[in-house]
């Protein structure tokens, strides 16, 4: 028996690390993956795809917007590590964070329709949840009001603050009591929103422009209009959680950039670090920062994080923004529209198909639940999931066999979430359309 692997002992890490994950990190995740036939033992990256013993896999999770280990992001990180620049600045006055913040603000203040200045202050955190926490605290500190409203079906993260905004269920229920003042409103119900504001004390409304885990559900234009008006009228912060929708994913730099009023706060995360490093950003205005934290020197860091915005992650984010050109974002819009139209047309013949939804390359494929008992979780011996539909999970199972990492939405297992990388070759997309058509056909043959 050998001892634990050391940092660069790649051979031993791949040799024993998967089993060690099961033993020392979480036994159920590899178990679930094994039952679903999910490729686990990926050992290398080839042209942005993952190599497993069964072959190459295209990853549709969405964290790797330019493919796994994009050479430009990798090279930027290697160059930084080869330099003598500090990574962490004890004063917290980091030129890397400063320069990235400026770049993010300048880019976010430019919409597809032209300049729309709104952002002049950024807080860097290490995860999307951390960004949402920062937004909640900003709202409380800036407004002095306790109530934070969210929408039913939301997924804003799993830290205690962000979790309070989550849809009830397995992610949330075990951790009660939750943050006081956090409330959920029904999606797209303008009357309910108006009633919530009428009760007073609203510090912020936090929402995803498109709820990804909630089932790729788009917030309606009418609701957005009402939300913009009511938050402004009542002096509450409008917070757009763009962790999934931002950074070009919907064919705009920010999905919220076309709203009647720019949100007071935008949270970015996921692929901001190029898929290589964790970084999130909470963007707001200098005025709101001043209101929340500007009273004196001590309060300036009332909310902080030790490693947020360290130089290395900022370099990764800079390299990612280098790749995220206007032309790329425009291609996300056009390729996404074309892909959604193709899927809609191709899959329409299947009885288990419901719809295609989303924007840009954030795509949801709606599936109907099968009513055949032998495709139920109960038949599979998992009684605790007997109320859940299996179709999305089964389609994932089939796609794993064919070289695609796809996932069902966390809150709605009827919906397959498909978030291709922005530079995915056309041939791979073609193969995906053909494959999902065949595999959905196969599932239909079982019912």
């Amino acid at each position, binding site marked *: *028996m050998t001892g634990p692997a050391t940092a660069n002992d790649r051979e031993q890490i791949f*040799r024993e690390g998967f089993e060690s994950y*099961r033993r020392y990190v979480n036994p*159920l995740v590899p*178990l679930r993956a*094994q*039952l679903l036939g999910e490729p686990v033992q990926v050992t290398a990256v080839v042209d942005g795809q993952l190599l497993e013993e069964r072959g190459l896999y295209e990853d549709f999770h969405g964290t790797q917007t330019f493919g796994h280990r994009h050479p430009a992001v990798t090279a930027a990180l290697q160059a930084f590590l080869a330099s003598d620049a500090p990574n962490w600045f004890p004063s917290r006055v980091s030129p890397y964070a400063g320069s990235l913040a400026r770049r993010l603000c300048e880019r976010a203040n430019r919409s597809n329709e032209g300049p729309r200045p709104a952002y002049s202050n950024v807080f860097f955190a290490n995860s999307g949840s951390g960004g949402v926490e920062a937004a909640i605290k900003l709202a409380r500190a800036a407004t002095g009001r306790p109530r934070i409203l969210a929408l039913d079906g939301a997924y804003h993260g799993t830290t205690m603050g962000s979790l309070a905004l989550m849809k009830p269920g397995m992610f949330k229920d075990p951790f009660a009591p939750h943050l006081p003042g956090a409330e959920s409103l029904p999606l797209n119900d303008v009357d309910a929103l108006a009633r919530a504001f009428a009760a007073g004390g609203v510090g912020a409304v936090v929402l995803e422009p498109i709820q990804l885990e909630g089932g790729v559900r788009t917030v309606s234009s009418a609701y957005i209009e009402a939300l913009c008006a009511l938050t402004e009228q009542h002096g509450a912060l409008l917070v757009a959680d763009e962790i999934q929708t931002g950074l070009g994913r919907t064919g705009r730099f920010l999905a919220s950039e076309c709203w009647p009023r720019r949100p007071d706060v935008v949270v970015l995360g996921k692929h901001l670090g190029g898929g290589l490093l964790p970084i999130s950003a909470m963007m707001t205005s200098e005025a709101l920062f001043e209101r929340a934290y500007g009273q004196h020197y001590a309060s300036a860091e009332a909310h902080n994080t030790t490693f947020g915005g360290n130089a290395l992650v900022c370099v990764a984010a800079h390299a990612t923004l280098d790749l995220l050109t206007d032309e790329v974002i425009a291609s996300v819009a056009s390729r996404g529209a074309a892909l959604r139209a193709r899927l809609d047309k191709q899959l329409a013949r299947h009885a288990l198909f419901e719809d295609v939804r989303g924007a840009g390359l954030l795509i949801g494929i709606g599936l109907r639940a099968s009513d*055949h008992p*032998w*495709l139920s979780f109960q*038949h*599979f*011996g*998992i009684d605790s999931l007997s109320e859940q539909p299996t179709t999305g999970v*089964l389609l994932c*199972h089939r796609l794993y066999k064919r070289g695609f990492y796809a996932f069902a939405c966390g809150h709605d297992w009827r919906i397959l979430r498909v978030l291709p990388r922005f530079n995915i070759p056309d041939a791979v997309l073609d193969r995906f359309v053909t494959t999902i058509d065949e595999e959905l056909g196969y599932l239909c043959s*079982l019912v």
Partner: protein
Amino acid sequence: MAPRRLEGKRCLVTGGSRGLGRALCEAFAHHGARVAFTYSRNQHDADDARAALQAAGCEPLVFHGSVADSAHVQATVAALGSAWGGIDVLVNNAGVQQILPIALLEEADWDSVMDVNVKGTYLFSRAVLKLMIRARGGHILNIGSFASERVIEAPVHYAAAKSALRGFTEALAREVGRYRIQVNMLSPGLLDVGLAQMLPRHRIQEYLAQGSMGRLGQARELAEIAAFMVSDDNTFMTAAKIVADGGL
């Protein structure tokens, strides 16, 4: 001190690089046997198993290939014939487990499980018997499963494959008994290696609740039973099926 039941015996274990197969190799070596094993996938596991046997004073012969590949089987048995001059014990242990409900069980899945679990046993047994029959003696032990012995939730192709081994064991024992070759089957319950790592906790708890001994089996316990079954101490048992599942 336990008796060294297999002193000088020439033992081949298929699928011997991990799990129960590795425990069999180690137990046989402990009992004084010369050991060879095959593996199909993970060379690192094979290297680990080899190193463990070497540390125990046994220099194993290791062969890479699928038991369902007749060329690999022929080459392995030929190599052992040359190296050892014969084979006294064959344990058909190699097998694949795949948890799939019937709705999702495709023809390829069925074929794969049958190939490794059933065809592989046939191929290795047939190849080894040529030597054993000429030598007028030997033991073949087929590793079954409680999945074919008890009414439990099990993948149907896996249960069918293990059930097929039961018929194979009985018929082969009948055919080669005249040469003093004993053919038996050992069907383990849930062990601390292998399938138990693929099952959710509630399924394991169900097993523990149903079992008379209230615990999982240990691979080394099964290996000790196997060591007796393939040893000269086993003078009369053939065509037998031993179920060691903690009393389900």
